[in-house]
Structure formats: C-alpha cells, structure tokens
C-alpha cells in the first residue's frame, strides 16, 4: 500500500507500458529490438501481478510467484531466442525480421 496511489494507477502504468511494447513489436525490424519490446510487455504484466497481489490479495503470495516464474521464463526465452539470432546472423548476415522468409510458402 502506498498512500494516495490507488491500484488503478499501477494498472494504467502497466497498460501504457504494455502498448508501448506492442508498438515496438509492430514497427521494429531488427529481431533484437523486437525481443526488447516483448520483454517490456512481460515486465508490464509483472507489475500488474505484483500490484494486484499487494492491493487485493495480500494474504497469499500468488502474484509474486507468478512474477517470479515469468522472470524465469523470460530468461529462458531470451537465451534461446538470442542463440537463434546469433545462428541466423552467421547464416544470412542479417537479423531483420523481414529477411527471415525462407519458409514462406
């Protein structure tokens, strides 16, 4: 609980962050920056979880644990994704999302 700060402020903050991430996801071409956008989205979700935990259900820690697991999954996702990017770069010397279309049709 923070004085004068209601839960909706947290939720709005995370919503804005979420859509900033979405915007990044939509416009960016470089795969790494797209991944950064995705991570921003994940962080916004984490904020939501924690805020709900703190404000609405402080008696147990579900929100915190979900956030923990999200962080862990983000780590795995980032590591595998970056391994793929590096391999991709070795193959086609480029990591723009539009150039990765070998499998198209």
């Amino acid at each position, binding site marked *: 609980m923070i004085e004068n700060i209601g839960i909706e402020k947290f939720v709005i903050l995370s919503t804005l962050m979420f859509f900033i991430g979405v915007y990044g996801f939509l416009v960016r071409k*470089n795969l790494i920056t797209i991944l950064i956008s995705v991570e921003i989205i994940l962080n916004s979700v984490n904020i939501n979880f924690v805020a709900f935990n703190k404000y609405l259900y402080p008696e147990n820690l579900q929100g915190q644990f979900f956030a923990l697991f999200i962080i862990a999954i983000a780590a795995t996702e980032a590591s595998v994704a970056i391994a793929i990017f590096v391999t991709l770069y070795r193959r086609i010397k480029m990591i723009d999302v539009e150039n990765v279309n070998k499998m198209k049709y």
Partner: protein
Amino acid sequence: METTIFYIFAIVILIFSVLAVTSRRILRAAVYFLFVLLAVAGLFFLLSFNFLAAVQLTVYAGGIIVLFIFSIMLTSQVNDKLEPIAAKKIIFSLLAAIAGAVVCISAIMTYRFSEPKNIEVDAGMKTIGKYLLSYGENGYALPFEVISLLLLASLIGAIMIAKRDNT
C-alpha cells in the same frame, strides 16, 4: 514521499520504454531498456517485494541485458543505425497501439476495483522458501521443478543452437 517516488519511477518507466522502442541505435535501446528494468525493480522495492526486486535485478539486469548486449556486439557495429521506419507503418502501428491503450484504460477507469486490503504482505525469504518447496495448498513445488527443468532445457537448447556446425 513514497507517492513522489512512485511518480518518479512511473515517469522513468514510460519515458525509457518509449525511448527503448524508438531509438535507432540498437545498443542505446538496450540501455534504455535496462533503465526500465531498474525502475521496475524500484517499484517492487517500493511495494516491499524485496526478493522479487532482487531477482529482477539479477536475472534481468545482470543476465538478460548482458545477453542482449553480447548479441548486439556480435551482430552489429558501433556506428550502425537502424533504417528509418516507413511513415505509413509508424502511423498504423501508433493507431493500433493507441486504440488498444484507450480501450483498456477506459475499461480500467470505469471498473471499480474492490477495496484494497491494508494487510502487510509477508514476503520474507523464509515464507518464500517455504511456499516454493511445499506441495500442499499454496505450494509451488511443481512449478518450481518445472521451471528448473525448463531452464536446463533452454540451456542445452541454446548451446546446441548456437554451436558452430562441425560440417
């Protein structure tokens, strides 16, 4: 006092998020993202989820960001700039994002959240440890183990993918 700190963090988060998704220098984007992460960790500290904040610092700031920077170092040069994005694309994306944000925020504003409970959250290390390793109600032993398995799998997977072909 805490109110002010919250606003500072919120503003930092928003500004650097925007910078992170718009910067044309890719490493700068990563650094802005680092600031976003630090501010989020600060929010967690503010809400007295100390453990979660420290995890955020270790895993994100200490781990994922370093991975990003490494991959950026491997895939681009210092004075590379990303190509400017077509105006049409920007407009459409912006429209989509703003529309989404407006819809969500209007929904949030009209929704009446139930009254916040003023109970102190017991997020101490002992409680967390107990929850993580118990398997009854509120026990997280199974997800914990599954996550550890997932981490191992991704470790091996990342090595296998990034390994140089021998052929």
